């Protein structure tokens, strides 16, 4: 970064914006609790398959690996966007943000495709407690990503029209936090749901 050593990035310089970033961290903490509860439900329900399929019968690692790679890449691109913003390259920031949201949209469409495949095969969440908790846990993550895409679109427009204002830098930083957070949740989802599911 081209900030002098010891100086804060712009989004932290303004105390007002710094307070908002702390607020966002706290929000993420509550979201951790939300996902923790859903994970707990899933782990308990994993074996409660009733007459429906077991995890091993419906999970396909191929698409899920693709989803993982896409989401990890998007986490990298959002960092590039933030880096560009900090070095005051508006166009690069916008470009990387657009790449991020396109990757996010690809992720969501792959996930929807996966869900639709399951449902078409008759595996709706009506079938068992396991499927209910699976769709809910993964779907909650997916809807978070969808919300993030909407936010990214709005942020892209704001950057395009208003430039790198202090508020926009702070929003971009918060968005990057949010996006990394979803990435971490996905890592857990990948290992606890898919990997563990395929192994059993």
């Amino acid at each position, binding site marked *: 970064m081209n900030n002098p050593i010891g100086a804060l990035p712009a989004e932290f310089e303004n105390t007002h914006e710094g307070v908002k970033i702390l607020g966002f961290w*706290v929000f993420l903490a*509550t979201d951790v609790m939300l996902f923790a509860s859903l994970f707990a439900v899933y782990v308990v329900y994993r074996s409660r398959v009733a*007459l429906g399929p077991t995890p091993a019968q419906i999970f396909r690692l191929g698409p899920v690996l693709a989803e993982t790679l896409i989401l990890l890449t998007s986490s990298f691109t959002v960092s590039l966007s933030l880096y560009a913003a900090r070095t005051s390259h508006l166009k690069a920031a916008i470009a990387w943000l657009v790449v991020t949201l396109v990757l996010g949209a690809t992720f969501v469409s792959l996930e929807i495709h996966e869900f639709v495949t399951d449902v078409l095969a008759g595996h709706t969440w009506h079938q068992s*407690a396991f499927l209910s908790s699976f769709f809910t846990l993964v779907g909650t993550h997916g809807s978070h990503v969808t919300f993030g895409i909407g*936010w990214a679109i709005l942020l892209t427009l704001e950057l395009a029209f208003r430039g790198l204002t202090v508020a926009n830098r702070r929003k971009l930083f918060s968005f990057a936090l949010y996006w990394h957070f979803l990435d971490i949740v996905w890592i857990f989802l990948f290992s606890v749901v898919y990997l563990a599911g395929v192994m059993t």
Partner: protein
Amino acid sequence: MHSWLIHLIKLLFPPQVLLPDIIGIDIGLTLSALAIVVYLTKTHRWGWLWKEWLTTVDHKRIGIMYIIAALIMLFRGGVDALMLRSQLIVPNAHFMGAQQYDEVFTTHGTVMIFFMAMPFFFGLFNVAVPLMIGARDVAFPRLNAISFWLFAFGAALFNISFSIGGSPSAGWFSYPPYSELQFNPGVGENYYLLALQVSGIGSIATGINFLVTILKLRAPGMTLMKMPLFVWSALVTSTLILFAFPPLTVALGLTMLDRLFGASFFTLGREGMPMMYANLFWIFGHPEVYILIMPAFGIFSEVVPTFSRKPLFGYEAMVISLLAITFLSYGVWVHHFFEMGAGPGVNVFFGLSTMLIAIPTGVKMFNWIFTMWGGRIRLTVPMLWQLGFIPTFVVGGASGVMLAAVAADYQYHNSYFVIAHFHNVIVGGTVFGLLSGLYYWWPKMFGWKLNERQGRWAFAFFFTGFWLTFMPQYFLGFEGMTRRMASYPAGLGWGGLNAMSTIGAFIMGIGFVILVYNIAWSRLHPEWDTTGDPWDGRTLEWSLPSPAPAYNFARIPEVHERDAWWSLKQAGKTDAVKLSPDQVEPIHIPKNTPMPILLAASFFVGSLGMVFSWHWMAILGGLGVVASLAWGSIQDDTDRELDPASVLNTEKRLGRVHP
């Protein structure tokens, strides 16, 4: 007539909302609403209402709106309570059918906890916390308004259920499988699930807001260990909310998915697991109990020193106790279901962890008592509530320890002993605390005091009624009476104690009526507080005029001691809070915005659509939510600047400028 119209009417007005009393209430409500509309129109107050209140982001006004709403909900929950008690006054009474009785106890519990106690102390947080820490507002004023409106529309959603579609009837904790469609058809339960989720989002936002406000916006010099204890209690309550509400959201959300979208989380078939709900609910539910009581602890920790003219005894121990309770409260939830077969090891662990909480609570109890030692105790109304609290709460706490003795709990569980216990702590602790705080901060909110003599009468009735209502209930538990019984046969010997309890409840009701009269009378014959410090207070809010100007502090104070204002008074330096004309700077305050009320209204519309499974309406509400959020996000002129001249004028008028 079209068949869909008949269907709609049947859906909106099923037999359980066509009872004569409900129709009577509906007519009464409609008439009062009309009267208010006519009044507002005649006096041309619509613009005033919109500009000054509905779109406000000022924490002081939001606080006042919270408290007014909470008092209305206290009335509703209280009427519910009197209906329940009337039904039980004699054996075999059937003023209400069992179905209606179930609805009334469900709404009583839900309203009192989520729509009375929580908004009430959110209101007091809003009124007092920023002033106590020397801040101009909370960290996120617009989010604060969003919290309020989500609560308000959540409460509205919950409350219309008794006249449209039918009330929820599965109890305030709504255990599945009874709360599932299989056993509980109709839309009533949907109201419960959606209203609590909507207001729950608001509560989480309030938690975030006050946590950040207290961590970041304290006046220079106010270290954590110099904060007033009420601020500490707001801090730990916010923390509890942040970690307790998400499991509730999950529990309610999953039940909703079961009911509305055919999932199988807690159903009997397809390997659903109702026990999971009990765990999720009480992981929220037990911290919630401390969410309710901690603010009261904070209020008492302000009231006792003020009216004993003495600093708090053992401040550090008080802080450590609050933190210990916060921590321990997450490790006790199983004590709500020792009888669900967890085995002796688990039960004993949770029994002992529950007993552990009695240690910090006991420490606090004794510390309040020793704060009075060596003081000069003034029996004002806020102090009376405090003095009523100590002997009452100690009984509730003691019965709590008795309940924690696992094997004994096998006999208490679900009996009236439990009812007596939790009313003993929630009414004797939370409600006494909230009313103490109401009388204490009232002059700061409105600039006039509540009449003391009437306040003493309200206290006397409420306190006496309380003891008469709930002490007999402990013994009803020993007589084998279980909670939620819609009636009971003669010959079990339960009549006498139940009659006493009902009489007590009505005495409490009289106490509430006197309280309302007290407020109305004092409004008409105001005793103005011209000093800003009517109680000879100790903390910073009393260094401001009553009510405080929009920007609170023209100059942010510097804090050197724990009871900042008291130490200034002791040193004779009260002039330090006044301004010199050259010290006035421009002040940024947040601008009013209709976004919060529009956002919450969209939530309301969407939720109502969900309740009745009208998908078009749910989508409409969802779009409204998205649109409001997007609009809120792109608003960039959220602040306005007060120019120094107008600040100086205001301060001069308040007599706070050095000549």
